[in-house]
């Protein structure tokens, strides 16, 4: 097996093992219902995380994901009040995400400021803008929201593939295409592998950096749209802390934070593992807040160690 697929394989193994453990511990766990819910419930974070995967592969980071999710929802809800169709306002927010991201990329490249800080400022700015728009949670009442929630493809068993999961899978496919079958995608990996060299090899830095963050912005805005439809509301505190979940999903999916190495597909499973941890804790149903945090940390630790161990042993096997 090609070296670069090892972390992905390890992540998938960990995910399957975790699912199996859930099945052993709890009734009704291994079912398409749980699986369908898992995909749908985590769709918005995973979508945002997919965009972040590119940012991280390029050696950067995006901390404004959570705020973007909140901001998109708040704007959509307020536009709903004045009668906009969610698809229109959602589409507008996607464009906003794209433009906003491009601007962030421009600042990072032109002013040579570290992505961590620029996007941290973005986090404050977008969240602060939510508060300035309004403080209350605003419902989105348009019928489309219900139609969207109802749309689904039935899975064998009781489960169904919800619309948000479908959007996520399409977004993933698009990302895989961009990452692996375009010149732009290859340029992203090059910048992450060695920025100076990439510039010397003729990678158009400004354009590519803007493209990378524009994608990041687009995907987190899409995550925000899905979240808004999913909760049929805009809430200024929505998405708080999601940036860490998204980044952790990316890393758990085998992408290196130092850049240059990683696969978008890994992010899907990284995100699902996080979702699965939450589901397991919910199924257990006797943990209070303190235990949830502790168990969450312990599980995270176990998966990382297991994943490392698997990658190591795969590597040995392929070397032998």
């Amino acid at each position: 097996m090609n070296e670069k697929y090892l972390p992905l394989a390890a992540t998938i193994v960990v995910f399957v093992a975790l699912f199996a453990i859930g099945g052993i511990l709890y009734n009704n766990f291994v079912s398409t219902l749980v699986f369908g819910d898992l995909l749908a419930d985590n769709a918005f974070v995973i979508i945002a995380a997919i965009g972040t995967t590119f940012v991280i592969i390029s050696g950067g980071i995006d901390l404004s994901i959570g705020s973007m999710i909140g901001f998109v929802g708040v704007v959509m809800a307020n536009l709903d009040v004045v009668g906009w169709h969610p698809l229109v306002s959602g589409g507008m927010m996607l464009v906003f995400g794209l433009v906003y991201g491009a601007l962030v990329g421009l600042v990072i490249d032109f002013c040579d400021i570290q992505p961590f800080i620029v996007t941290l400022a973005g986090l404050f700015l977008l969240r602060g803008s939510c508060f300035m728009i309004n403080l209350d949670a605003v419902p989105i009442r348009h019928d489309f929201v219900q139609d969207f929630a109802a749309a689904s493809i039935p899975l064998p068993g009781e489960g169904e593939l919800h619309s948000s999961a479908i959007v996520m899978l399409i977004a993933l496919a698009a990302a895989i295409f961009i990452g692996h079958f375009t010149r732009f995608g290859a340029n992203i990996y090059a910048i992450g592998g060695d920025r100076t060299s990439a510039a010397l090899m003729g990678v158009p830095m400004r354009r590519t950096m803007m493209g990378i963050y524009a994608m990041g912005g687009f995907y987190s805005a899409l995550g925000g749209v899905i979240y808004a439809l999913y909760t049929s509301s805009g809430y200024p505190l929505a998405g708080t802390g999601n940036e860490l979940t998204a980044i952790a999903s990316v890393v758990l999916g085998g992408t290196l934070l130092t850049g240059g190495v990683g696969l978008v597909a890994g992010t899907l499973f990284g995100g699902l593992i996080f979702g699965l941890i939450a589901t397991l804790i919910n199924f257990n149903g006797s943990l209070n807040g303190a235990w949830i945090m502790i168990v969450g940390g312990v599980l995270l630790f176990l998966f990382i160690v297991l994943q490392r161990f698997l990658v190591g042993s795969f590597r040995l096997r392929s070397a032998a």
Partner: protein
Amino acid sequence: GFSQVGDEGDWRPAWSKDMQEEAKKEGIDLKYADAQGKEEEQIKAVRAFIAQKVDAIIIAPVVVTGWDAVLDEAKKAGIPVFLADRDVDVKDKSLFVTRISADFNLEGRLAGAWTAQATKGQANVVEEQGTVGAAPAIERKKGFEAVTANFPDIKIVKTQSGDFTTDGGKKVMEAFIKSTDNLKGINVSFAHNDNMQLGAIQAMKEAGLKPGHDVLMVSVDYVPAMKEALAAGDANASVELRSAIGKYIYPVVLQYLKDKKELPKWVKIPSDLHTAATPLD
């Protein structure tokens, strides 16, 4: 299944604990899920309850909006839903059975009424808000303002967010002290929860002011530390938000599961105002 908001402050953990203990007493098998203050976690939890086919679901919603879809799923699965604490904003009120809770708005109003009464309608108030955008912060502020609006001489001169924390309350009060030249002309400090008020008390003491004396201190929650502060005269009033409300909630749920009788959409749990004169009950 019981889906709690999170563990912030002193009040919620106490409530969660009470819910779990009361459930044991009543012989209920309670699945407890803590959403850590996040709506999406809560929706996940409710979905997990549905997948596990529980008999009833109690939700203390993080946010009022966004419940239509998931409550619809619960309804389809034939699981009745009860709300505790906050309300939800759904089109179809039949999606949940009833709401059993206190009223944030009322708490704010009680605090406002107390302020009006204690100051005879003349006060300059500094306000320590809760987390920006959080429902209790919004509602308590609205409630307080709804009452004080009737008194033209009650003015909120400074307001800042202390994030519902002691530390935040202390920092905000320090800033107030500085920007108002040692709280000159300030009569009342209204905090959206006790933790912030306790922080504010510390800040005032450190600046050489006498809380409860120079400035009247009113807040919400009535946690144990506040009882002491009231007893010591450092604070003047706190609106109780009962945490031992399992005994109010479970009977309603069990009754409904038995006879499926329609209930009014809001079963209120009373809030009490405790003042320095009546600190220990």
